């Protein structure tokens, strides 16, 4: 099949970028989107041009490295799919495809389609941890966890931190990501000691990094390759409200 690729080319941070058109002949419908870019890059290198920079690692849809906007949708038109698992059979012969980097104030562009998503790591660093007992390993099933709680926690833990939610959100909000991270720990007994501090710190961090607010558009959920739902955002808001009213961050001063 024949395709017209329009790719955002930008030499580096702060440089002026533009969409550049690359006609692609002979595209196999069984290629993944990243393989299409690999093919393009081989052609570019052959012509002595600079190849298109893009993030990728596992190419199995589980690591969260890849991802950019494909014709206006984060990770492209297929549901529950990362960019690496998006195959060209989802497109029609003669289609024009626009590839743009994820755009957010908190995701500065490094080069072409590569953005710096370390702000998501900073949100996790702010509170995405638990206190664990050291020493010998605990007995299996010593800690009782209801099946439905374990399942919900697993649903949240499926987040691979790709940043598609931020990219798709009209407000550049990281609430789906943060909600998933807060919930997958907060639903389990191991996450209880820091539960309230986690909600307070991660929510504050999100704002500090320049992410927007949630307007309940639902765009994040629609593009999430792991099917994280906005029910977790409601859960995060509950946790944050409870933490704000009950938690004392500092020890109470006695007069």
């Amino acid at each position, binding site marked *: 099949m024949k395709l017209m690729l329009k790719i955002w080319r930008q030499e580096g941070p702060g440089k002026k970028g533009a969409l550049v058109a690359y006609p692609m002949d002979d595209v196999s419908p069984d290629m993944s989107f990243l393989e299409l870019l690999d093919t393009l890059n081989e052609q570019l290198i052959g012509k002595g041009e600079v190849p298109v920079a893009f993030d990728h690692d596992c190419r199995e849809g589980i690591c969260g490295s890849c991802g950019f906007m494909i014709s206006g949708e984060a990770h492209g038109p297929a549901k529950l799919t990362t960019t690496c698992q998006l195959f060209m059979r989802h497109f029609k012969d003669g289609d024009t495809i626009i590839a743009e980097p994820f755009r957010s104030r908190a995701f500065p562009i490094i080069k072409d389609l590569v953005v710096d998503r370390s702000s998501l790591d900073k949100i996790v660093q702010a509170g995405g941890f638990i206190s664990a007992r050291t020493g010998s390993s605990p007995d299996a099933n010593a800690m009782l966890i209801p099946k439905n709680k374990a399942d919900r926690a697993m649903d949240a833990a499926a987040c691979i931190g790709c940043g598609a939610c931020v990219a798709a959100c009209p407000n550049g909000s990281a609430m789906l990501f943060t909600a998933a991270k807060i919930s997958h720990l907060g639903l389990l007994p191991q996450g209880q000691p820091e539960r309230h501090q986690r909600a307070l710190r991660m929510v504050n961090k999100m704002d500090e990094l320049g992410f927007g607010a*949630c307007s309940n558009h639902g765009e994040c959920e629609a593009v999430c390759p792991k099917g994280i739902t906005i029910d977790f955002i*409601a859960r995060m808001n509950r946790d944050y409200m409870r933490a704000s009213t009950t938690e004392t961050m500092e020890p109470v001063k006695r007069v």
Partner: protein
Amino acid sequence: MTRLISFLRTNVGSKVVLAATGAVLFLFLVGHMLGNLQIFEGPERLNVYAAFLKSTGELLWGARAMLLVAVTLHIATAVKVTLANWRARPVGYAYRKDIETDYAARTMIVTGPLVFLYVAYHLMMFTWLTTGPGYSETDVYTNVVSAFQVPVISIVYIVAMLILGTHLYHGIWSMLQTVGISNPRYRWLRRTVAPVVAIVIAAGYIAIPVAVLVGIVK
């Protein structure tokens, strides 16, 4: 106190304020609509109701004060959150597709101010009596009927209520979601009941000028 301030400063906290003040205004809209619909029971009923509201004195002013605070907070927070949202994406996309969001959700920051402008005009007409054809302090019924017999006034009112309905269409389910009233099992319920409530409220208000225009209420 510092905790309250830091709560209000965050986007989540701001959204909770928007939802809570939105809920107050929503409850007012329901009450106001039910009160207004008494127009269908004749002039006496509506005028007695209006006189009753005025006779409550401090209670009326308490309710008005609460609404004023709710409106002020709702607007101030909406502006703050919207500015934060715009700042969050300084460079836009060359091409972006909306998948899940709808017209009502994307235009909240437009429909909100439009409703506010209409409310100001509405107060001038029916509360302060500084505009419009009716000027009676006690005969609310005649004020309403003579105003809505002017087609332009009726049309502006109907359009305003449609805009309000659009705002509520997103707002009602949104406020429940924001304050965390959410369970995956009942999600479909929120997504269907909220629009129905928005339509009922808009239709309830619109019924009055329509009834006046077609002559059911004279």
